[in-house]
């Protein structure tokens, strides 16, 4: 209870001179380009492939970097500005690198009633990073506070990357999940 104003949002605009982080990759792989072309062909308008292509870009590039957005624009021959506008609208496109295991904690009302806020604090403690801070030093973890994940009846819930939801997560369960991550039992981010 120390800040009278809401904290800065993680989606705050870039400061003057600040740049978006760069990804190692600059271009799509040939398979990804094929995949995108196949998706675009399913819709009456190729613009509709923007969201799926950004998902693929995030998988290929590791996060939705500026180069990833440019690659999407090129692959679909649509304006870069459009892709940037879309990518910045949706929270699942990570504009910064994330850890191998991206821990997403729901703190919305139902989860909060059963301890979602405390779970987020514990997750941050264990992972050694704050929400929105980027990966931990060992590259294993990043943490995000997310809105309702549709597991409200069994909260608090935690999502690891995009595969697995864990529900009724208490301290013991959290340890189990993080151990399982370290043993490589969950798919790594973007793999």
């Amino acid at each position, binding site marked *: 209870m120390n800040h*009278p104003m809401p904290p800065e949002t993680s989606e705050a605009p870039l400061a003057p001179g600040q740049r978006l982080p760069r990804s190692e990759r600059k271009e799509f792989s040939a398979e990804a380009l094929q995949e995108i072309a196949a998706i675009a062909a399913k819709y009456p308008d190729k613009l*509709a492939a923007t969201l799926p292509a950004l998902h693929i870009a995030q998988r290929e590039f590791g996060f939705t970097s500026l180069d990833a957005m440019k690659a999407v624009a090129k692959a679909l021959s649509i304006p870069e500005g*459009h892709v940037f506008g879309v990518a910045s*609208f949706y*929270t699942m496109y990570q504009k910064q690198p994330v850890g191998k295991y991206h821990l997403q904690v729901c703190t919305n*009302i139902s989860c909060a009633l059963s301890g979602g806020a405390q779970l987020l604090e514990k997750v941050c403690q264990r992972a050694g990073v704050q929400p*929105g801070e980027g990966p931990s030093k060992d590259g294993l973890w990043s943490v995000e506070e997310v809105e309702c994940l549709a*597991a409200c009846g069994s909260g608090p819930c935690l999502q690891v990357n995009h595969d697995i939801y864990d*529900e009724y997560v208490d301290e013991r369960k959290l340890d189990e999940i993080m151990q399982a991550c370290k043993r490589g039992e969950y798919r790594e981010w973007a793999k």
Partner: protein
Amino acid sequence: MAIRTKHDPQSYTFAGFGSEKYPNLMLRGAGDLNNWTLDVYEQKHEGYVAMKQALKMEPVAVTEEVKTSGIRGRGGAGFPAGLKWSFMPKDTPERKITRYLVINGDEGEPGTFKDRAILEYNPHQLIEGCIIASYAMQANTCYVYIRGEFLWLIEKLELAIEQARAKGYLGKNILGSGFDLDIIVHRGAGAYICGEETALLNSLEGRRGEPRVKPPFPAAKGAFGQPTTINNVETIAAVPPIIRMGGAEYAKLGTTKNSGTRIFCISGHVKRPGLYELPLGLPLDFILNELAGGSSTGKKIKAVIPGGASAPVFSEAEFSTPMDFDSVRNAGSMAGSGGVIVLDEDTCMVQACLRLIRFYAHESCGQCTPCREGCNWMEMILHRIEHGEGTLEDLDVLASLTPRIAGRTLCALGDAACGPMESMLKKFRHEFEHHVTHKTCYVKGHELLAKVGAH
């Protein structure tokens, strides 16, 4: 493929579920991870019987049957589904029209987790519903929009669609009826507002999920500029049972203007949270105490949000309200998406309110000023009150803000934010006042706000 092999801990059943009193139409086999395949659906759950029946009927007759059933949309607004379908323009001898059916599987409303269970355990019931509904409206493409977080459910649904295609239930000339249908699954990317139907259409078209100005309504100009109907996952999954039983028989479930069963999602301070498929019109306190086991904390239940986070809160006086669209509306709230959130006596309403408003402020798409600025103002004022820096005047400012937002925005998100704000302030004003004068919560017990984060 990441077909989930881990048991999920959600509760799907209760004593008496599946009996004549509490028919099980939507949650068949829920909880059993092997239930989702086409074989199980056909062998155990009368799968695709209704589709075969419908394909022999005239399309308008199918719509009529759904009208007779009286089913109202389960996504939020409770609009009669059959009537919505009948708005779709028909072909004329001169002009053939491309029509679309779009399924809303965005499931973003806090407190709601029902569509997920259908996708996990009964994807074929949804697919069968899509086929019947598309046939009724003569749509040849059906888009299923699913929130991005449900990646494993999307992969599962795609497998189920492949199974149906292999059986000849999808594709060209389905079972020799001359009707063609393709289902395309579209993955969202994390934005609550994309649950709003026109925002969903924009998102489907590859744009930012910003709601559109209505009219034109989607039935006139929807996805890709073509006439479109948007229905919730649960609404469409209810269509196979309706056709199988006949609309008139379905209409006998529930109450007269609120027929059928719906899945209530119960969360918060009850002993047995989970999904409860119930006929509409059962009293709220019966559901909470008899079925969900009453308070889990030993403390009295103070407040209930009856229809997903956007619904105005009920205090004890309204706990006997029958849970159907009209009764809940008459009691001053809305049945919305069926999410019932239970708050016990130890829950600070200022914190609960702030948590919800923070959600709306974060999810506002920012197109219209009352919603964008109003939600942020409400958040900041509540934040101030919560941190002991509010004044009594702030309460009046809050009260004066809601009528300036509600009804003045492009989409219903503005109204959705005002629901909890207005009702909590009105019904629990003493807690807000206590916060201002004592600089601390009126009740302590649950800390709802994390000391880290806030995005």
